[in-house]
């Protein structure tokens, strides 16, 4: 019963737009949300209207410019010490972005190495790493943060350590699964037969194929890292005043929500917009790169 019709090759799966079309439809909404954050993050100090830390007791709690009592000198108003909110938001963008990107990069590095080792070598390495990933997954993030806080107190290091400790496992889990399937591919098997060293196989044959997955994961994680940073700052373990970060600004603004609603509102809005932007961008990237990992 082999009379199957062989003549034509199956056409490209219907209903799926061509790759070209996908790249053409860029996620404009995400780009619009992220562009100001990235610009502020890179050239922040050039854009300050005021020094973000200068206290101006003549202008405390000034409302945004478009409200009664506001002035064009302080477009988004001022805080309880008369510091310009917009300038502080720009400063916060820098801090938040640096921490989020830095933390995610380190976590990615650790996670990718662990995941590749786990998936490629299997055995004891695999069961140890998988066990660690499992444990991390079943513990609430906040407990790890509190423990780190208890060990080293608050500050930038705590935030970075928390992000690394919380995120490496996500990379390890996903990369392990990808490596497991890559390991069985023909060209990897061939490389093994050709007596290539493990290092060579891992870096030349496996790592390049993980690129898409990593890029997508990093993008999505940056959003989550900003949220984590904000939460840590909010419980007082993060960036310490007079330095600032968005989470801290929401926390400080909380005390004034009856008299100066713009303080917590705009700082929170900045966080939300940035995270939303990275989430949308990451979702788009996942579809565009056709990453099969649905678990991202």
């Amino acid at each position, binding site marked *: 019963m082999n009379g199957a019709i062989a003549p034509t090759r199956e056409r490209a799966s219907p209903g799926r737009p061509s790759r070209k079309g996908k790249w053409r439809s860029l996620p404009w909404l995400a780009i619009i949300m992220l562009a100001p954050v990235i610009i502020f993050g890179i050239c922040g100090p050039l854009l300050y209207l005021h020094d973000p830390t200068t206290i101006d007791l003549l202008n405390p709690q000034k409302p945004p410019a478009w409200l009664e009592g506001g002035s064009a000198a302080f477009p988004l108003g001022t805080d309880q010490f008369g510091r310009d909110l917009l300038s502080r938001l720009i400063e916060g963008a820098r801090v938040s972005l640096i921490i989020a990107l830095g933390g995610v990069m380190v976590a990615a590095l650790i996670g990718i190495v662990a995941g590749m080792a786990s998936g490629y070598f299997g055995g004891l390495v695999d069961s140890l790493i998988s066990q660690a990933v499992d444990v991390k997954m*079943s513990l609430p993030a906040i407990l790890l943060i509190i*423990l780190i*806080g208890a060990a080293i107190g608050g500050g930038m290091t705590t935030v970075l350590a928390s992000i690394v400790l919380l995120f490496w496992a996500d990379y390890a889990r996903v990369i392990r699964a990808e490596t497991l399937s890559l390991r069985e591919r023909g060209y990897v098997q061939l490389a093994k037969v050709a007596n290539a060293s493990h290092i060579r196989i891992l870096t030349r044959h496996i790592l390049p194929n993980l690129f898409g997955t990593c890029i997508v994961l990093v993008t999505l994680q940056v959003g989550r890292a900003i949220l984590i940073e*904000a939460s840590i700052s*909010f419980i007082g373990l993060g960036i310490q005043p007079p330095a600032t970060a968005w989470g801290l600004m929401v926390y400080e603004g909380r005390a004034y929500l009856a008299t100066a609603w713009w303080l*917590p509102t705009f700082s929170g809005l900045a966080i*939300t917009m940035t*995270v939303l932007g990275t*989430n949308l961008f990451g979702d788009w990237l996942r579809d565009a790169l056709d990453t099969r990992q649905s678990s991202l």
Partner: protein
Amino acid sequence: MGRYILKRLWRALITLIVISMLIFVIARVTGDPIAYLAPEDASEQELAQVRARLGLDKPIYVQYAFYVGDALRGDFGNSLRYNRPAFEMVLQRLPATIQLSLIAFIVSTILGIMMGVLAALRRDTWIDGALRLLAVLGQSAPSFWIGILAIMIFGVHLQWLPTSGRMGPEYLILPSLTLALFSMASVMRLTRSAMLETQTQEYVKFLRAKGVPESQIIFKHMLRNALVPVLAVLGIQLSHLVGGTVIIEIVFNWPGVGRLMVEALLNSDLPLIQAGVMLIAISVVLVNLLVDLSYGLVDPRIRIE
């Protein structure tokens, strides 16, 4: 099923051992416990005596064993600030935290599933679009900010609901809804994609060919199948919720374990932190175990090997 249960029990045990080790190590790095316990002008000899009495002269693994033994008896020492047994203080606050997270868990699961099903059934309509937007917003906005906005709108401006403390049931509304938002968004997204996935399954086509009414196909077959992957992540959702509680308790002044721990953290009250972390870890691990076991009830492929 037996193997499955054993595996889950093993994981729960490992998790608890790891967290207890972490706590133990941190308790040791942050300083010599003697510093708290002995009088400041104590001589070397007196210090050695105290050390011997506390077992601190023994090897580290023996100390750990002692530590676990104490922890099992609920002895984490006295709170440095309040000078009361830390374990007791945490236990007192536990009901408030459990109440808050449990309600948020139920709300987020039920609403999330309902919204996910609705979005999947109305795929590519404005309802689907609105729900998806809500979901991605819920996953992007920090919960403390949503909480603060809610306080500003419903508490300060409209004065509809209380925003601070834990007196009557109405005090639960804002905190639990705020807490539920993130989980609800995750559950919704997952349910939606799981429902869309089941829609393409062969057995759904076969059910239609059998002439089974559409409502029965959706609610008996598709929903139950879609719930399998949803159930698998409910444990993780619960972890998120418990973590989120800490923040929400601060925003809404809720007298739970989370707020107690953050206060303890700012006071460097180590025994209180240890007791709090351990108790929360135990609760989360236990509930995770329950979720894993209920997974077996829904999916016969796990129940019957």
